[in-house]
């Protein structure tokens, strides 16, 4: 083209270049110049939330949120431990003792959190020196627990993160997970296939029924405009009560038991344990589920970054009007997104049923559907972020169990003190605190006097998976 712009001497980008100070203006101006009537793109709840989540939530903020949650948790532990609390009454008479007691409590408790979720250094040392007949299984036990708890949470976290990118808030992970667990277990004991056919069939069934549960939401949203939050909440109830009824049916219920529990899933339909078949006897429960969860995250990352459908999904999430104008089918995209999301959550439920529990009970999936929302937010609704968040959550759960046991604090002078355990409820509080701090980036930034990174809004790395 001959009509090139005037090249300023030096040709350097001036201050009016996009991205510089003129940024907010540029963003504002074109909207106002739109139609006479106001037609600004109205962000949905999920869109607005996403913007807030990404604008502020740098890696630092996430890290600081975890730190802050730890601090508040420490405070709660001190308040919750009768012995230590009493010590604080003598703060001014025996400050040394008070602080020592506090330190004992915190070091043992947080130490247990680490020992219960990653590795117990003491066990490791004893195994290294071949003492007490410690096997490698004992060393790996904490990690195995963490992975066991993490796998379903990664699935349900992804199930929330994916529709989030399409502008949908999936509160229905719980219901979809329940349907996934139900389908997986049922296919397990109904078909009774040998491994690996058994668990493959169960996995597919779980994904399909969970996917159907999500698709119902998507298609109703696309066709009738019903709000997905309401729909998913209602479908959660339906799924839960359906499961309660289903367990009691003849052929499902375990005839040898009086309580509401199903027959056990035959071993051919259970996920293999990743630490080897003998490992299950030693308590290493971690199964194939965690591998599947990470594969699912990889698939979602690929979809969002490279997939044609991922492009449509993100386009619809940011601006459905523009997506429609560009020839995309918005309704079909929403429906398919919810189906995929339901399949992910369904897989989360399946892993609970045929990976961990091996039977169906009313609370076979626990709270993974709802915790998935927290995991997704903590992972900033990005696939790999969700994996890390799921692992952290799994670690908190595994370590939380260990925190209840208490322990012995050894002082420098060789004396020892027995420290009481921390209640498991407190672990739940810590998890909630992390999410509160992550979901309230403004608060964290205010506490640490962080400045919003100027590039946060401009970089499009964010738009990628």
């Amino acid at each position: 083209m001959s009509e090139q712009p005037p090249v300023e001497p030096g040709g350097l980008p001036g201050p009016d270049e996009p991205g510089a100070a003129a940024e907010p203006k540029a963003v504002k101006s074109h909207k106002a110049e739109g139609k006479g009537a106001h037609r600004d793109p109205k962000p949905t709840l999920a869109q607005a939330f996403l913007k807030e989540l990404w604008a502020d939530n740098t890696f630092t903020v996430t890290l600081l949120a975890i730190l802050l949650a730890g601090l508040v948790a420490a405070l709660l532990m001190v308040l919750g431990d009768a012995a230590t609390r009493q010590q604080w009454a003598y703060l001014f008479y025996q400050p040394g003792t008070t602080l020592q007691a506090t330190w004992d409590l915190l070091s043992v408790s947080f130490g247990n959190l680490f020992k219960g979720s990653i590795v117990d250094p003491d066990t490791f040392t004893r195994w290294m020196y071949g003492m007490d007949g410690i096997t490698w299984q004992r060393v790996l036990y904490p990690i195995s627990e963490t992975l066991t708890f993490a796998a379903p949470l990664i699935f349900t976290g992804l199930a929330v993160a994916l529709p989030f990118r399409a502008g949908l808030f999936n509160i229905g992970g719980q219901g979809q997970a329940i349907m996934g667990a139900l389908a997986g277990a049922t296919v397990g004991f109904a078909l009774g296939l040998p491994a690996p056919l058994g668990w493959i069939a169960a996995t597919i069934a779980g994904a399909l029924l969970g996917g159907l549960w999500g698709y119902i939401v998507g298609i109703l949203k696309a066709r009738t405009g019903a709000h997905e939050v309401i729909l998913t909440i209602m479908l959660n109830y339906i799924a839960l009560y359906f499961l309660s009824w289903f367990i009691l049916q003849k052929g499902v219920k375990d005839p040898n038991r009086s309580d509401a529990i199903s027959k056990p899933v035959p071993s051919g339909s259970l996920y293999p344990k990743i630490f080897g078949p003998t490992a299950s006897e030693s308590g290493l429960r971690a199964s194939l589920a965690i591998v599947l969860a990470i594969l699912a995250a990889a698939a979602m990352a690929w979809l969002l970054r490279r997939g044609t459908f991922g492009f449509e999904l993100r386009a619809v999430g940011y601006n459905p009007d523009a997506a429609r104008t560009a020839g995309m089918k918005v309704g079909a995209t929403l429906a398919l997104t919810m189906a995929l999301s339901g399949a992910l959550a369904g897989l989360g439920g399946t892993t609970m049923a045929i990976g961990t529990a091996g039977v169906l009970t009313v609370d076979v999936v626990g709270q993974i559907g709802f915790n998935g929302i927290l995991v997704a937010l903590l992972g900033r609704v990005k696939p790999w972020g969700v994996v890390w968040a799921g692992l952290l959550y799994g670690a908190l759960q595994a370590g939380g169990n260990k925190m209840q046991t208490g322990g012995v604090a050894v002082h420098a002078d060789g004396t020892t003190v027995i420290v009481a355990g921390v209640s498991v409820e407190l672990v739940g509080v810590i998890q909630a605190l992390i999410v509160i701090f992550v979901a309230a980036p403004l608060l964290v930034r205010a506490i640490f006097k962080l400045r919003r990174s100027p590039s946060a809004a401009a970089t499009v790395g964010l738009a990628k998976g």
Partner: protein
Amino acid sequence: MEPSEIHALLGENGAGKSTLMNVLYGLLQPDEGEILIDGRPVKIKGPSDAIGIGIGMVHQHFMLVPVFSVTDNVMLGAEHVRGPFLDHDKASKLVLEVSQRYGLPVDPDAIVEDLPIGVQQRVEIVKALTRDVDLLILDEPTAVLTPQETDELLEVMRGLKAAGKSIVFITHKLREVKAVADLITVIRRGKTVGTAPPSAPESELADMMVGRSVLLRVEKEAAQPAGSVLGLSQLVVADDRGLQAVAGVDLEVRAGEVVGVAGVQGNGQTELVEAIMGLRPVASGTVTLDGAVVNAWSTRQFLDAGVGYIPEDRAVDGLIREFSVAENLVLDVYHQKPYGSKFSLNPDAINSGATEKIDKFDIRTRTAGYAVGTLSGGNQQKVIVAREMSRRLKLLVAAQPTRGVDVGSIEFIHKQIIAERDAGAAVLVVSSELDEVLSLADRIAVMYRGKILAIVGPDTPREEIGLLMAGITSGTAPESAFAASMEEAAAGPAGVALADEALPHVHPTAGADTESGGAPEGSDPDGSGGPDGSEGPEGKAA
């Protein structure tokens, strides 16, 4: 700035006008330099500081709460209280008093979302005036207004000036500046390039804005039309409320010609274009493409068949702000080779294609990976133009292709449209800017109340088209003086205000609401205005 002065700030999109004013209003902090008020340097830390020293601002985006009444909005942030309760009566009296003093009729009890855009803007001005400001900043106030509303606004500005207020008027529309400003400062790339009196010729101002000579008319050869590409026959389309917006349109666009649709906004153009693109169902009649009836085609079918589309509202329909420039450049071809397939995208092809288009269409962005929302309006529009014109087109449908775009980009986009025509595409241009239609079109269809009133040649005088835009066909022309004033109002913003009487209830869509709503309020509340309503506020101003 002097007292009682209208100072126009003129500049291309992204030149830094709004940024400068946001600094003045305390929304942004200056990195260096200082602001002098009455000779003293001041530090403005936020809008309340700005209001404190007498600076008020009317934003491009109205800062109003839609579900609140006018009074509530005006008192928001400076609530009148009696004990712990809000004093509505006092506030409402204040609104009335201010609106009467400055000739800004508003109903204090009306709910803001029910008001037309022009009146909402008036509420914003009233809001600023109740804070006793001396300096009023109007940030691109005319961007959202119809020509009639623009004229009213210019009147209001003159009135405010007469009342001793100073006004900073930010715009990139040359005509408005010339009509109302006392002094014009031109800003380019964040620097003042110069000042000029309003008597300076438009071409000189445009030169200053873009830093080179700008052709305000597109140079083009005569059209060589070939066979019919797009055919509309008795097309009827409903608007969002189910009312007939397009009421039986017949139109043909042939290969190698530009057909321009002129008309005051809200006369069914939006619905017409959306129906052509498969974005809105056709109620009755037919749309044909190359002779085949395509009423039921999806948007994708149109796009894949070689129809290019520049939507009228780029922020809503044209672009995804959070997507990168590269992604926006393939927004409707991402699934086609070489950019991608049914399953996966090809980022290499997308990126190299983007680099090429950024170069060819002179899109000013740092990199192809930058979010499109960070670009200036003109460059955003170029992204759409580049996207649509980078494939072989059979038909180009361009709705308001240069709305809110700076002069330099307008010229560029117009040239691209003509180039598309010369390459053999049929082009349909819909614009509410008569100048644009006149400079691009080979045939002009004038649309009024959902119908095409006439199809005229490009050499038809402005006045005649203006009359048609106001719904007056030659047989029904009223007395000449009346017609003339009305024609001007319809044709261009710089005309005489208040042609509303001539345009009663133009059309029951957004733009028309503004007019019907504006009519009673536009007439002078003191009753001094005659049929020529411009006498009213202006009389006081002069």
